[in-house]
């Protein structure tokens, strides 16, 4: 299995998905070799691990830590110099540091914190080189390993997948967690598109995380529909069940949460537009934007422009305990994504007893019914629904009760089982062995 990120060093859904899926595969008795790029340590490592590069981690150590859960998983890392990429990283961490510093001073960010920067840095030519270096190393590694199927996650690993398939003749599965159209709208990076297209066409099977994504693969990449299977992501139960009592200590202020990368794809401007509308009819509410990304500066500016700066809280990128805490305080999680192939974050919110409002343009809306839905562009409707959740406790309660129950049905075990069936088809063994 070829991946790009793995917990705890993740930037979003991809790492979470790889972790959930491989762990469930391990339970099914599948043996997985997980190949990850390993970065050369960079200074200030605590802030440079968010975006796609699991920098300076010792995966052999990690293997021990997860030993019981991932007993059939072998980790292989590939040395790769990620220094050029670190510049984009550094930029992002800078913004965050500045914001954190501001908050510590007690102020809420209302004005732009960052200087002007090129926002497309992270998919620069260096990344391209990196992808190919990863591919070359993967081939070398593959020669030493014994395996039946190659499973590549997202475009960064497709060249590696293609190369390994060409050398070994093993069947290739590419797993599409997102496409360039989701990430960049119509301003597609041609280089990335080409890699994606080549990977999907050369693959023996394409796994899409939703029908939404399958449609994009068919219409934008011209892939034959018979080759594309939909496997929904899952969610791990935290095991603590319905925690309805946990927010008993009520604060007089409501919290509406945006949690994710602050990028075009995630629709931060629609969140702010809705916030503005909500604040026209309600006062005791704060909007928290947790995450970082290339639209962060713009979002901060927009909040100020709309005159709601004091009601919007930018926290920067959160992890672990911090995420837990923000969920505990939140009354509603909003995901106004413009294009979301799946969207694991709403499942996590539901898992934490936070009701969710998701855009209809998300894969996860195909599997969730006990949630609120709106078109991402329909700011009035998003605001209408936010107000309703904050105003009517029975709505919040019903969403929580049913949502928490529904989310339990989305299991990684089922996703792993589906992948297993696909593998078995590919290596021409009778199904169900």
């Amino acid at each position, binding site marked *: 299995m070829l991946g790009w990120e793995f917990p705890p060093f993740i930037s979003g859904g991809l790492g979470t998905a790889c972790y959930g899926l491989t762990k469930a595969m391990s339970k099914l008795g599948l043996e997985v070799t997980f190949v990850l790029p390993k970065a050369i340590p960079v200074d200030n490592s605590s802030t440079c691990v968010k975006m796609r590069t699991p920098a300076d981690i010792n995966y052999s150590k990690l293997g021990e830590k997860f030993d019981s859960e991932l007993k059939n998983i072998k980790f292989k890392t590939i040395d790769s110099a990620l220094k050029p990429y670190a510049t984009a990283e550094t930029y992002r961490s800078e913004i965050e540091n500045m914001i954190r510093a501001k908050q510590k001073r007690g102020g809420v960010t209302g004005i732009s914190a960052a200087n002007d920067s090129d926002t497309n840095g992270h998919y620069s030519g260096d990344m391209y080189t990196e992808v190919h270096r990863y591919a070359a190393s993967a081939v070398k590694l593959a020669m030493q390993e014994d395996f039946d199927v190659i499973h590549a996650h997202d475009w960064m690993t497709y060249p590696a997948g293609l190369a390994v398939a060409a050398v070994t003749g093993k069947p290739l599965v590419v797993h599409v967690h997102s496409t360039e159209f989701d990430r960049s709208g119509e301003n597609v990076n041609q280089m990335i598109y080409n890699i994606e297209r080549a990977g999907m066409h050369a693959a023996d099977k394409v796994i899409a995380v939703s029908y939404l994504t399958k449609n994009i693969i068919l219409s934008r990449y011209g892939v034959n529909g018979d080759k594309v299977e939909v496997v929904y992501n899952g969610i791990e139960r935290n095991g603590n069940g319905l925690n309805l009592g946990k927010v008993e200590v009520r604060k007089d202020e409501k919290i509406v949460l945006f949690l994710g990368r602050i990028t075009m794809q995630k629709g931060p401007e629609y969140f702010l537009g809705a916030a503005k*509308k909500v604040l*026209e*009819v309600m006062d005791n509410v704060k909007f928290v934007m947790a995450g970082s990304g290339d639209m962060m500066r713009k979002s901060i500016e927009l909040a100020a422009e709309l005159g709601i700066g004091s009601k919007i809280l930018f926290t920067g990128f959160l992890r672990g305990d911090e995420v837990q805490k923000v969920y505990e305080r939140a009354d509603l999680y909003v995901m106004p994504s413009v294009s979301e192939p799946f969207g694991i974050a709403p499942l996590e919110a539901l898992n934490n007893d936070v009701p969710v409002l998701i855009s209809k343009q998300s894969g996860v809306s195909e599997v969730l*019914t*006990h*949630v*609120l*839905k709106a078109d991402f562009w329909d700011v*009035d*409707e998003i*605001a*209408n*629904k936010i*107000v*309703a959740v904050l*105003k*009517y406790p*029975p*709505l919040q*309660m*019903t*969403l929580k009760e*049913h949502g928490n129950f*529904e989310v339990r049905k989305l299991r990684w075990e089922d996703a792993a089982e589906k992948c297993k069936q696909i593998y078995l088809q590919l290596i021409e063994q009778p199904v169900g062995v």
Partner: protein
Amino acid sequence: MPSVCFYFQVHQPFRLRHYTVFDEDQRYFDTFKNKAICQKVANKCYLPTNRLILDLIKRHEGRFKVAYSITGVLLEQLAEYAPEVMSTFDALARTGCVEFLAETYYHSLSFLYSRNEFKEQIFKHMDTVEKLFGQRPKVFRNTELIYSNDLAAAIEEMGIFDGVITEGADRILGGRSPNFLYKPPKEGKIKLLLKNYALSDDIAFRFSNRDWNEWPLMAEKFSHWVNRVNGNGYVVNLFMDYETFGEHQWEDTGIFNFMRQLPDEIMKHPDNNFKTPSEAIAAYPATDVVNVPELISWADMERDLSAWLGNAMQSNALHELYRMENKVKKTGDKSLLSDWRKLQSSDHFYYMCTKYFSDGDVHKYFNPYDSPYDSYINFMNVMGNLDKRCTKPQHSRQKVMK
């Protein structure tokens, strides 16, 4: 000698338009959608079925009889959007073979929340039926056949009804047949007609189901089932939504042909006949008491109230709505009262039902919402506006206008 007693429920609510918390006008109802649905159902069901029933009554020279309960909210819509349906109902009324039943004008759950409102709506409905069809109802059916001992007592107390119609639920009959007449535990003149749900649902739900081992259902076969009651019951009560004909069961399922042949087949047996509810009540004694301490209805498998009161949103919306009663009535504003009452139609709460929602089933029929949550949000927004109207100084404004 089983009699067959047909009663059809005829109802469409005033559906709400998309109404956000930012809306401030008083146009709550989706005129376009309500008109479209009303006309569609009129063309597919009400008109062809009314003509068929009229034809059957004429052909059988008064031996074929049916009963209707038509809600006030549908009568209002028919008058405006499909007046031709009104004239066919009028023609049916004049045959003398059709009985009209009483219910709450707004197809409401008012019995559960306000006895005053409940009675006012019954009287409003009876007045409307009498004005339109020239007969004052003698038999009562509550919304969705919701019933309990208390309901029987409330109806008895009104002193104007001979009988009540409800569901022949297993748990109230305890093995007894629904084909007899019953009475409530409290002494009085009221008799109960209980729906034979097995035979009713054969027509209303299973008729077109190809997985059903009795498919296709023919009039002859169905009549045999009715004949089997002979000697073990007085009356087979076939109660169903009128939309069964042409809407729930489309024309191409053969439902109209089935109905066209049914009277002939039933009356092939010399002991059989058709009776209206009032005739059945007059003809047969109540054989036993049914005790119904808890509320029942004709909905879903559960035959309880969970379709309207199954979650926190539903009970919150209903409580808030009825809490406004005095406030609304004090204003003396007729259009405000009418809007408030239209919000009482049980359908609004049915749309908020989360039971089976994930499976996507029958609750979707004519349901204007994508989800129960959307329905609740919309309803609460409308109610919020209605509430503001109550507190506004309406009177002073009217004076200014004069």
